[in-house]
């Protein structure tokens, strides 16, 4: 979203042309989040920033009516170059074909002592999803050299530290920030061969992570952006099972839990009145292959990969 709003490539410029016609007027510093009905030529037909289904339907019907009133050449505009012919730098271009692609889902776990004033709305049942990418050679590093039951491998620290920085974060209620490398106090990840069947090796995954950060930042969203002294942290224990096919050189099954505790908040993750330590859970499973499952990890730019 921030890329579309402030970037300079062809895709960003088309979005900014649309946003300038919308309710937020494309003003710098004002979020252009929402839903828009638009023509491929970049004419705004209707827009709204609401999750109310009735208002959404009304907005889409209004947009459709305007669409019908426009001549075809105005709706479609001139022919556009393909994505590859443009200067658009999509993070999806870094998708590691043949690697390990995990869907990452997070929720709050049941609490023994809920907050004194809990948020009695969507936040009670909030969940979020993200993705974690590993290149083929990184995935191979998770598998012990010898395919024999009982063989162990300490998975390279860089991989679990990346998960701890970028995925084991509190995004349950909204966007947050990754942890910095210096915030990672503990990150271990081990694989043990528990079954070998033909060329398929099944692994038991265990590990532990702990990240803490301290400094000045806002926990008040857009309304209270002033930085104040804050702390946040995230500690988990990992347990999982995965199967690697030595012939196909890829994982054919992967499920891993990260259960633990979080505390504190960040500017937009809606924890302003929920700062005390509370249980949180994350699950990593193999992602599918649809466009929605090939979306880049939220913090891909913190992977240290070359961006295409």
């Amino acid at each position, binding site marked *: 979203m921030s890329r579309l709003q402030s970037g300079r490539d062809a895709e960003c410029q088309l979005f900014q042309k649309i946003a300038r016609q919308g309710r937020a007027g494309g003003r710098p510093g004002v979020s252009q989040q929402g839903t828009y009905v638009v023509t491929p030529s970049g004419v705004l037909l209707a827009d709204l920033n609401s999750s109310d289904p009735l208002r959404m339907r009304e907005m*889409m019907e209004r947009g459709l009516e305007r669409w019908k009133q426009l001549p075809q050449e105005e709706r479609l505009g001139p022919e556009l170059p393909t*994505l590859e012919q443009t200067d658009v730098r999509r993070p999806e271009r870094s998708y590691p074909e043949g690697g390990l692609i995990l869907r990452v889902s997070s929720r709050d776990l049941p609490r023994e002592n809920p907050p004194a004033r809990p948020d009695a709305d969507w936040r009670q049942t909030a969940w979020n999803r993200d993705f974690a990418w590993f290149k083929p050679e990184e995935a191979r590093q998770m598998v012990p050299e010898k395919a024999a039951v009982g063989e162990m491998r300490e998975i390279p620290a860089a991989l679990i530290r990346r998960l701890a920085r970028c995925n084991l974060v509190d995004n349950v209620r*909204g*966007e947050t920030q990754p942890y910095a490398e210096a915030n990672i106090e503990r990150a271990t990840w081990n694989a043990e061969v528990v079954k070998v069947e033909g060329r398929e090796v099944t692994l038991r995954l265990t590990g532990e992570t702990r990240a803490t950060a301290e400094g000045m930042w806002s926990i008040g969203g857009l309304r209270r952006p002033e930085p104040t002294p804050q702390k946040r942290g995230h500690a988990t224990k990992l347990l999982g099972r995965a199967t690697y096919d030595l012939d196909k050189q890829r994982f054919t099954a992967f499920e891993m839990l990260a259960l633990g505790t979080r505390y504190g908040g960040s500017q937009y993750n809606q924890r302003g009145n929920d700062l005390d330590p509370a249980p949180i859970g994350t699950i990593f499973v193999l992602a599918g292959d*649809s466009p929605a499952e090939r979306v*880049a990890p*939220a913090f891909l730019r913190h992977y240290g990969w070359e961006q295409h």
Partner: protein
Amino acid sequence: MWMRIAGTIGLLCVAAAALAQQVEPTEESFPHWKQYLQQSAQEQRWQEIAWHAVFWEGVQHARAQDKPMLLWVMNGHPLGCT
């Protein structure tokens, strides 16, 4: 009879409390937390729409089909583009 019902409820409460405290994954609790953390079919209904994740590709598709686009841009939206 009431004593037995009360006893059963008491045991269930103890079990539920123990589960809530159990924030370390174990082989035994794995299936429970797996189901708890994954999105339900209802929560995944938005995926019944074949969304384009790349805006430019959506524009190309809409142009080829002579159709308007529904553009959903959100920090933290379900496609994970936070």
